[in-house]
C-alpha cells in the first residue's frame, strides 16, 4: 500500500493537470490577438452574462444578442481594459449597456437609463405582512417556481433588478456593483433594499402561510 511519506513514491505520482491560466495572463494574451485565450474567458463567464442579460431584457432573443455584442465589444476594446478592476466587472458594465440598448429599442414602458430618478420610498413599504411556511417553495414544481421568481424580477424597474441580479445572484460586492453600474455605493444600497422589499412583497402572495393556490 502506498504511503505518503515515501519520497520515491511521491515522485512517481502522476502530475495532475496544470492549473488554469490566471485571468490577467489570459487578458494579456487576448490583447495580443490570441483568440483562444479570449475564448477561455468567454467560457468562464458566458453563463453568468446570459443570466444578467436575460434578467435585464426579459427576452431570450435580446438576451442572446446582448451576450454576443458584449463579448464582441469586449474583444475589440480589450486594449482599453487597464486591469484596475476585475475583468468580470468590466464585462458586466458592457453587458448592462448592451442590455439597456436592447430594452430601449423595444421601447418597453420600463426602458430607462440606470440614472433615472427613483420614486419615493413608499413604493417599498410592506403591505403584505404574512408569515411564510417553513419551505413554501416546495409547494411548486421547479419550473413553476422558476417562472414565479422570474416574473417577480421582471416586474421590477430595470434599475432595481440590475442591482439585485449583480448583488444577490452574481454576489458582486456593493463596491463592485457600484463600479460596474457607474453608481454611488449609497445608490446601490438604496436600490438593493427596495428591490429586495418589493420582491418579498410579490413572493408573499405565493408563499404566505395557508396559501395553497
Amino acid at each position, binding site marked *: 500500500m502506498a504511503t505518503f511519506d515515501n519520497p520515491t513514491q511521491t515522485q512517481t505520482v502522476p502530475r495532475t493537470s496544470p492549473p488554469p491560466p490566471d485571468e490577467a495572463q489570459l487578458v494579456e494574451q487576448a490583447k495580443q490577438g490570441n483568440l483562444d485565450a479570449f475564448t477561455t474567458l468567454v467560457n468562464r463567464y458566458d453563463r453568468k452574462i446570459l443570466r444578467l442579460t436575460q434578467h435585464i431584457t426579459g427576452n431570450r432573443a435580446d438576451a442572446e444578442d446582448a451576450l454576443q455584442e458584449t463579448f*464582441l465589444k469586449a474583444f475589440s476594446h480589450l486594449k482599453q481594459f487597464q486591469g484596475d478592476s476585475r475583468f468580470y466587472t468590466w464585462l458586466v458594465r458592457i453587458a448592462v449597456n448592451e442590455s439597456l440598448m436592447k430594452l430601449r429599442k423595444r421601447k418597453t414602458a420600463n426602458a430607462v437609463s440606470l440614472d433615472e430618478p427613483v420614486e419615493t420610498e413608499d413604493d417599498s413599504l410592506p403591505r403584505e405582512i404574512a408569515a411564510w411556511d417553513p419551505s413554501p417553495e416546495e409547494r411548486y414544481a421547479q419550473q413553476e417556481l422558476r417562472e414565479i421568481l422570474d416574473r417577480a424580477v421582471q416586474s421590477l424597474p430595470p434599475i432595481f433588478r440590475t442591482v439585485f441580479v449583480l448583488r444577490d445572484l452574481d454576489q458582486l460586492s456593493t463596491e463592485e456593483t457600484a463600479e460596474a453600474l457607474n453608481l454611488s455605493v449609497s445608490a446601490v444600497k438604496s436600490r438593493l433594499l427596495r428591490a429586495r422589499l418589493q420582491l418579498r412583497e410579490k413572493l408573499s402572495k405565493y408563499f404566505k402561510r395557508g396559501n395553497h393556490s
Partner: protein
Amino acid sequence: MSCRKLLSEISNYLDGEIDPAARRELEEHIAKCPNCWVVFDTTRRTIQIYQGCCEPYPVSEALQTRLRDALKKLCEKTQTEESQTKKS
C-alpha cells in the same frame, strides 16, 4: 428603533454592513415587534430562495457556435486592418 428605520436597515443587516449599535437595536426591535419580524424573515428568505434557484443560465450550443464564428470573423478583420496599417 422605529419600524420605518428598521425597514431601511434590513439590507445592511443582512449584508453584515451595519454598525454594532444599530445591529443591536434592530435585533431588539424584531424580537418584540411581530410585523417587523415577519418582514425581516421573509426578506431574508426571498434572497435565499433566489440564490437557491437562479443558477447561471446554460448557453446553448447554437449560441456558442454563433459567438465563436462572430469572434473569429472579428479577429480576422482586426488582423487584416492591422497588417494594412503596417504596410502603409
